[in-house]
């Protein structure tokens, strides 16, 4: 979309001249935006700067360093201010206009319909200044936002969000109706607000008690500690060596003190073990407390709202996030109920979006419902699924011998290992076989619970024994089918059906139904094939089967190439 120079067309009133476009872009960023841009740029230099300041004090070099950094800082500031002076945005009735670029000027037209997601982000600093960062995402772009507006007054940002939403909804309804000329950007900022707000429903709010439960269940604290440990090990041979040594020495001293104390108190083995257990318990407790703190930090004030076309999420204690997800962009669902979830009577829902996103993006709406009771979850899923109901009906069992397959695979290696150790090292290793009944029980329970269903255009797979998970998708969102049969499958008369969707997260288990009776698998494959959309992507309109297929023709291919922008990622 860069450098949009639209040729003025005579008969199309919606095409505006370059001059008119420039005139339409009449709003500026917040007057303090240069400060936030500067802060952001400085953040990239912060660590090197600190290292230099701490380590380097060598007279002559120092002067040059100081000079260099002040020149750089001045240049950055000039750039930031210049950017503020240049940057303008404005509204047409079908698109957003953005003028930007410090040296190379850009004039961008972003049609409302192309904008898939508007993210409002406010850090603590932003909130003090009553401003927000706005990120506009479109379908393609490899996860790179279409535009980033840094920063807008909060009221302006919310206005922008509402206008985009209203414009998108309107675009769908009235695109075909002839549009009048519109040199937009008058003061009727509030136009379309009522439309955007009509029909919004609050689906979920998370009070602090829920967040505490979420923190206890999710155990995010562990991830942070692991990441911290990783960073520490990386730092050992760098400038932080001294710091690391100091910490290590301190820890050692504490440990020695502890040992001496234990000696003085004449503690026996039992007490030592008890102390160790206590210490461990304290550690676990600390981790959980950290998890709860992080849950509150990220999800405080969580709201999930639903409009007719979009889902909206708002959350965050210090830095607030406000995001949107068009309903049709949800590709597949993952509902999870771990053992802890079951103890608390809660569930967790994540969705795959049709977007390339980083694996652990905090700013994504992948975790659509962080925590909710099964009843709330059923209500939300009932709204989202085409059949308007959850739980789904008509669950079908797996092959009767599925439990044997489930038992064999994980048990084989440990059994061989036990035998090996027992034969060559210690016969006591045979005690390892005591866990076999547990594994058999697990396989049995798993096989009895697991199953699939094809209900109202939703194909679902559930599994679990102590924990439970459901993975499901609408059949019209499926991208491909694969039926496989391994030699083991063949022996039992089984087959595995794999279903492919857009943007399936690598962190989720794949949508794959194993251990099916081969006849059942083939029948399901045929049923899915018959229900998958024909020919058109967006509308699922069946095409006549007998339509003559065009044979290759020179020129046709080139013609098609022109028309095939990579639009597919958004479709389906």
């Amino acid at each position, binding site marked *: 979309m860069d450098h949009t120079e639209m040729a003025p067309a005579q008969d199309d009133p919606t095409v505006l001249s370059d001059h008119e476009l420039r005139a339409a872009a009449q709003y500026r960023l917040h007057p303090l935006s240069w400060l936030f841009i500067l802060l952001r740029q400085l953040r990239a230099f912060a660590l090197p700067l600190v290292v230099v300041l701490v380590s380097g004090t060598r007279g002559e070099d120092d002067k040059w360093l100081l000079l260099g950094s002040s020149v750089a800082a001045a240049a950055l500031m000039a750039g930031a201010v210049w950017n503020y002076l240049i940057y303008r945005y404005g509204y047409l009735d079908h698109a957003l206009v953005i003028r930007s670029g410090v040296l190379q000027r850009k004039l961008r037209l972003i049609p409302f319909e192309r904008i898939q997601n508007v993210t409002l982000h406010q850090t603590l600093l932003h909130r003090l200044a009553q401003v927000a960062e706005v990120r506009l995402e479109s379908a393609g772009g490899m996860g790179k936002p279409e535009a980033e507006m840094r920063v807008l007054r909060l009221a302006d940002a919310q206005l922008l969000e509402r206008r985009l939403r209203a414009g998108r909804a309107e675009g769908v309804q009235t695109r075909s109706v002839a549009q009048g000329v519109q040199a937009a950007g008058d003061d009727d900022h509030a136009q379309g607000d009522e439309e955007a707000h009509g029909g919004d429903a609050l689906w979920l709010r998370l009070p602090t008690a829920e967040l505490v439960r979420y923190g206890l269940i999710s155990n995010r604290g562990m991830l942070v500690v692991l990441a911290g440990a990783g960073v520490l090990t990386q730092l050992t041979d760098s400038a932080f060596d001294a710091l690391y040594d100091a910490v290590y020495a301190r820890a050692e001293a504490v440990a020695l003190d502890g040992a001496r104390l234990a000696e003085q108190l004449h503690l026996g083995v039992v007490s030592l073990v008890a102390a160790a257990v206590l210490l461990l318990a304290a550690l676990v407790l600390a981790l959980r407390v950290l998890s709860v703190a992080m849950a509150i930090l990220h999800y405080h004030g969580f709201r999930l709202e639903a409009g007719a076309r979009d889902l909206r999420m708002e959350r965050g204690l210090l830095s607030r996030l406000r995001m949107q997800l068009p309903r049709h962009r949800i590709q597949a669902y993952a509902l999870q109920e771990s053992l802890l979830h079951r103890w608390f009577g809660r569930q967790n829902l994540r969705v795959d979006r049709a977007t390339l996103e980083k694996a652990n993006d905090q700013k994504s709406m992948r975790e659509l419902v962080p925590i909710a009771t099964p009843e709330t979850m059923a209500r939300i899923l009932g709204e989202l699924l085409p059949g308007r109901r959850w739980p789904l009906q008509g669950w079908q069992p797996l092959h009767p011998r599925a439990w044997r397959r489930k038992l064999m695979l994980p048990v084989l290696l440990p059994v061989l290992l036990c035998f090996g150790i027992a034969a060559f090292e210690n016969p006591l290793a045979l005690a390892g076989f005591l866990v076999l009944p547990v594994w058999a029980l697990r396989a049995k329970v798993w096989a009895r619970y697991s199953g699939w269903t094809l209900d109202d255009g939703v194909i679902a797979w559930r599994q679990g024994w102590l924990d439970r998970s459901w993975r499901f998708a609408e059949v019209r969102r499926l*991208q*491909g*089918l694969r039926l496989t049969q391994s030699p083991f499958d063949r022996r039992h008369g089984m087959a595995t059906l794999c279903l*492919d969707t857009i943007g399936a997260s690598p962190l989720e288990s794949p949508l794959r139904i194993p251990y099916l009776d081969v006849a059942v698998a083939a029948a399901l494959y045929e049923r899915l094939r018959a229900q*998958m959309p024909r020919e058109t*992507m967006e509308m699922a309109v069946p095409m006549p089967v007998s339509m003559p*297929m065009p044979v290759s023709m020179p020129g046709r291919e080139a013609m098609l190439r022109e028309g095939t922008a990579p639009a597919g990622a958004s479709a*389906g």
Partner: protein
Amino acid sequence: MIDPSGAAPFDTAAGTAAAGAQAPPVPVVERAPTPAFADWPGDAPWQALPDAARRSFRLSALLLAAVISTAVGGLPLLIAFLDQEPELPLRLLLTLPLIAVIFGFALWRASVAYRNIRWRLDEDGLRVRRGRIWRTEVLVPRARVQHLDIERGPIERRYGLATLIVHTAGTRMNALRQPGFDEDTAARLRDALVPKIREVDLSPASPSPSPSPSPADAAVVAPRGD
């Protein structure tokens, strides 16, 4: 297309009309629910690859085997030779059977793979079956095809073959890659699978409330190849 007896099995009425009267009727499969895995790798509606593909597969397998046996057998031998180790003849004796096994396995795998590949194009889309021991049947629905590539490596060029790659928007199965097609077959498969909605998209946005292409519309926008 030139050889009427080799008329594409996936052409529908239009294709056969162009190919001539004596071309066999097109086996566009009429929803025949063939039970999967019952008749592996499958008869009549399923198409095998041309015979040249067997040779092409074998040649590729031989090249791969050559690379592997150089790494596994050849290099240690060379080092032993340069070091002037006394047991060189013994090593040679041990290495040669190993290399023979590698080559034999490669050739065997190539022909097993060739014998078990079947494909079929019907109103649903392209299906491909592969494998003898681990059996797989993949279906890429027509409506899900994003774009198509045809690749010709040096070996395939030698035999007049091509690799067809069907891309979808999916994640784990985002590209179905099948080597060993006739160049001609690959090209026509590609043309038959090109998404048709795009042809409708080429026209300016129509003011009609329902943009679903009626068959008549589609026929107008997508000209017949004659």
